[in-house]
């Protein structure tokens, strides 16, 4: 059976994290959707599922995973996919997303988004896993470009070409993380304009906006700071080329009071002035 295609959704949202649960439940916040980390709710019961059910009563929800491990030579984890499908069937999310990366192999999970070489073999493995996952989940996936900190000398494609081929082979959609584009382009000396030009923009369903940190040797995708001007600038340039997309601020560390994030989201709503310092 063909996986269900997630319809486009135009709106502005936040990554929902524990410190803000109470405020989102106490009163309707000015967002069009929230995104939650799937794995935090792929549990048997208790407070996490109770909270998510009450959130879902008030908001549209996107489920964003970090452990689907789609690029792994191990293949997909059917138990993981069964749990995710059960959650999705209950929550009825806008879509299910995860990353163009792998997290583990040989049964060991690093819990980090590790990079794939952009080769025919890696594309074969990833495409097979994405098709298997979409089959098990009954839904086409939305997949995010990762921040990367190393590249492989045997790459035969660039990242946009790899993503385009993946979309063509699997029917998946894209979550464009603008911060990740900036981090990877800076770390590897790439031209962001050329990067975005080669992307199948009609496949983009969602945008992530986030901050990063300067590490010892390179930029690191830490999600612990406000969206920097460099990322706002890319967003302003890219947004007019996209169709209906869901735009979201993502913060995972040093989480500020909710009004600060809502204020950042207001800036995302006004792309015409988004680059104004």
């Amino acid at each position, binding site marked *: 059976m063909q996986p269900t295609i997630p319809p486009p959704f135009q709106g502005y949202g936040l990554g929902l994290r524990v410190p803000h649960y109470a405020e989102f439940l106490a009163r309707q916040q000015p967002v069009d959707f929230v995104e939650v980390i799937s*794995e935090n709710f*792929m*549990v*048997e*019961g*208790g*407070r*996490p*599922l*109770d909270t998510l059910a009450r959130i879902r009563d008030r908001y549209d929800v996107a489920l964003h995973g970090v*452990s689907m*491990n789609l690029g*792994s*030579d191990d293949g997909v*984890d059917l138990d*993981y996919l069964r749990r995710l499908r059960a959650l999705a069937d209950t929550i009825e999310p806008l879509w299910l997303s995860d990353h163009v990366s*792998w*997290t*583990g*192999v*040989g*049964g*060991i*999970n*690093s*819990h*980090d988004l*590790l990079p794939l*070489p952009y*080769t025919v*073999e*890696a594309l074969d*493995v990833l495409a097979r896993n994405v098709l298997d996952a979409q089959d098990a989940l009954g839904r086409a996936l939305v997949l995010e470009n990762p921040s*990367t*900190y*190393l*590249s*492989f*000398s045997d790459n035969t494609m660039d990242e946009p070409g790899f993503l385009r081929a993946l979309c063509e082979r699997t029917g998946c959609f894209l979550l464009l993380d603008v911060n990740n584009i900036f981090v990877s382009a800076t*770390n590897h000396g790439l031209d962001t304009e050329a990067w975005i030009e080669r992307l199948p923009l009609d496949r983009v369903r969602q945008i992530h906006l986030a901050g990063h940190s300067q*590490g*010892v*040797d*390179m930029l*690191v995708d830490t999600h612990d700071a406000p969206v920097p001007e460099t990322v706002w600038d890319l967003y302003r340039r890219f947004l007019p080329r996209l169709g209906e997309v869901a735009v979201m601020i993502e913060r995972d560390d040093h989480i500020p009071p909710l009004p600060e994030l809502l204020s950042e989201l207001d800036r995302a709503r006004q792309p015409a002035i988004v680059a104004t310092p």
Partner: protein
Amino acid sequence: MSLGDLQRRLLTAVMTGRPVPELSAAGQRVYANNVRCQLLAALRDTYEKCAAWLGDDVFHVHARAYIEAHGSTSWSLDHYGSDFPDYLARAFPERLELSELAWLEWALRTAFSGRNASGLALEELHVRDWDGVQFSFVPTLMYRQLHTNAPALWAGIATGQGIHTRPSDSATDNGHGVRVWRHELTPRFVSMTRAEHACLDLLVAGATFGEVCEWLSSTAREKDVASAAGSLLRAWATDGLITGVRETG
């Protein structure tokens, strides 16, 4: 090199911090640091009271040692650290309170998101033949014997009150053990007597309430049996532990 070989080598490199020579060492350092930070954060989150009791620096050293020896085998970071209580028992054989405190934290974490089940109140237990009845309990129920006052230690750390470790109060039987469960959405624990521990063991294994009373009569004075059995039943029902009854007769 095949993708599988590359992934196995790179994973080993980021888990151990010993980089693959033909790939960027700086890039591998970022991934290795990310992995270490994620696993450390998971242990700190689950074993918050242990970290407070041990002190941050000592906890950090042992969390690092645990991570070196234990890769994550689950897709969920919530599952990481299940062997940490055993690790602490080996690392601190003279400080039993540490592994028992860690066990309590793990049990509470497990109960937090365990399977839902509704407990029956005492008046909802419709039983004709109490001797032949079997009980089922909430799936989040965990219990064990303790050798220290780890539950008091947990509470003392949670409230910020100073507390000293001491052996469990086995002389009065009040601190024989602990049981953990989730009542509605809140994980809970209470101290458990030796008698309650034995009765739960029997019931969980499928014994009838009559068999439990027989066991109590073998250990208690005859006239105390009804009172002891009634007290346990009331406590379990009040705590929402009993999810069902089945009459075998």
